């Protein structure tokens, strides 16, 4: 188990390398030259050359690449072109907001989705099952920004329970401001989690080992919650893991609707102001997060399914 974990962790290194390389070259291939897009069409060649030199764009691509890699290893991405501040500091100050939103909404999605999925699977075909399935479908087809606005209308304007914007200060203030955006994303994700839990439970329900457990005298409830659930969890964990990654990068809309600071907003701002070092750093960070979440999901597989264990 420990050997497998170490091997799996070591395997992330080539993955990270490939991802980072891809980001670097994709940004270089893009047609617009950062310097000329910053200075505009009428810039003088001198000014262009000066800016390129300042940005390090006059060096050969191979040199830039090596410098970039060194930067990634030191987690130093240079300075923002628009604010002039260190990108790493900026990211570190924004990362918690995005992470807390992603984690809180995944937590909400799991707390709502998994139990309802189990219940719907047990009551398959019954009226409650249909109700849950239809609501999950509504959740799945609802765009986050739309539900976000509805939530604001309902719980911030009509019933002023939660603030509609900003991030709040201190632990309590933070949670308080997190409530609506996290609920918005969490509710939407819970639809997927519920459907996966339900269908995965149904796949297991008629397996032979279920009959064996019942023939041993194990009560139906325990069979459902112990034997069947344990075997149904792999697809559920996969979906939750995938959701974390989409939530981290896809929180852009929610962050905009709720005017929350965060990486999504930073990346969008970087595109608008053509602040390519910031964009590059954001992309690298998203990649690292995706790779990390996949690592955790993989390791949890081997915990859940003994067959995967080496």
């Amino acid at each position: 188990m420990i050997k497998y974990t170490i091997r799996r962790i070591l395997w992330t290194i080539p993955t990270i390398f490939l991802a980072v390389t891809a980001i670097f070259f994709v940004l270089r291939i893009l047609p617009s030259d950062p310097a000329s897009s910053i200075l505009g069409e009428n810039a003088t060649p001198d000014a262009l050359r000066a800016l390129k030199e300042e940005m390090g764009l006059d060096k050969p691509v191979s040199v830039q690449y090596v410098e970039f890699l060194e930067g990634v290893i030191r987690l130093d991405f240079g300075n923002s072109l628009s604010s002039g501040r260190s990108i790493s500091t900026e990211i570190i100050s924004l990362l918690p907001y995005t992470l807390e939103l992603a984690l809180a909404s995944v937590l909400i999605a799991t707390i709502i989705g998994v139990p309802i999925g189990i219940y719907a699977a047990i009551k398959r075909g019954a009226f409650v099952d249909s109700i849950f399935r239809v609501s999950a479908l509504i959740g799945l087809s609802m765009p986050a920004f739309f539900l976000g606005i509805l939530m604001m209308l309902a719980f911030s304007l009509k019933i002023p329970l939660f603030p509609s914007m900003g991030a709040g200060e201190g632990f309590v203030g933070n949670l308080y401001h997190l409530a609506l955006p996290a609920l918005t994303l969490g509710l939407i994700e819970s639809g997927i989690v519920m459907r996966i839990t339900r269908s995965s439970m149904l796949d297991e329900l008629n397996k032979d080992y279920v009959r064996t457990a019942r023939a041993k005298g194990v009560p139906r409830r325990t069979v459902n919650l112990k034997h069947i659930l344990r075997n149904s969890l792999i697809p559920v964990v996969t979906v939750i893991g995938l959701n974390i990654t989409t939530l981290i990068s896809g929180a852009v809309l929610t962050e905009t609707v709720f005017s929350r600071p965060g990486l999504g907003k930073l990346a969008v701002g970087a595109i608008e102001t053509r602040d390519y070092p910031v964009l590059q750093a954001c992309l690298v960070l998203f990649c690292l997060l995706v790779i990390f979440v996949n690592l955790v999901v993989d390791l949890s597989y081997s915990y859940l399914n003994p067959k995967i264990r080496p």
Partner: protein
Amino acid sequence: MSTVLEVKNLNVETTGKLPHSILKNVNFQVQSGDTLAIVGESGSGKSMTVLSILGLLPVTGVRITSGEILLEDKDLVGYSDDKMNAIRGKEIATIFQEPMTSLNPSFTVGNQLAEVFRYHTNYNRKDVKKRSIELLKKVKIPDPEEKLKAYPHELSGGMRQRIMIAIALACNPKLLLADEPTTALDVTIQAQVLDILTDLKNEFGMTMVIITHDLAVVAENCNKVIVMYAGQIVEMGSVEEIFQKPKHPYTQGLIQSIPGIGKPKERLHTIRGNVPDINQMPKGCRFHPRCEIATEKCIKQEPILESIESGRRVRCWHTL
């Protein structure tokens, strides 16, 4: 000899507006110490009989419409699921057909064995471990202590079936139901598993019902036989009687379909046609479309299960 299990007029039907009969008036007794075989083709109602006894018929789609299932003096038909949980695994234990999939892949062998003790005894952890090792030794599993920590996928089919037997024996059940215990195994492993079952049966004086379509298993291990066809019992008797003098054309057909080793090669006997679908049950004798000696009477009138000698019953108008 006392009666361990008595099934009286058991009827199982599909639910819905037009119920179809799955088991019709099934009647039989199992005496203490007996090994009863229930034989028949797939779809003849063998497994449904076992699931009815266990109270594990599918929750929707089928139900017991009438009849009694008496375990000693308790009628299990009226039992709630909770009450049945106390009986399953303790008084009635079961071995199923597919050893490869009958154990939960996510839990260790030890964990799955311990579960039986958890629900039927008040053993502490030490007792459970001691008993588990004893059981694995009984079913001739080498290295029992190590095997308790193994996951099912780490064991072969024969080993897994032995684990299933160990689970079944854990609480010294009064009745052991074995639903095609060897069908999915290699021939050599089949013999080993059957030997283990017979040894244990002799050691504990257990009563056993073996469901199979392998007549060789019947001849070697059982003393009484029930032949089922399309949800009905068509013939019952002792092993010798059934094999030497089958009275029902279906039984005769089954026996003639056994390939013999060493006999001169000839075309194997087959019973033409298939077991009828439950929603297209033939009128009259259910076997008549496939029977070689069927007459007008067989098409019109349903034969009853008649006693012809003591302990011998046949459902046929033209007993052989």
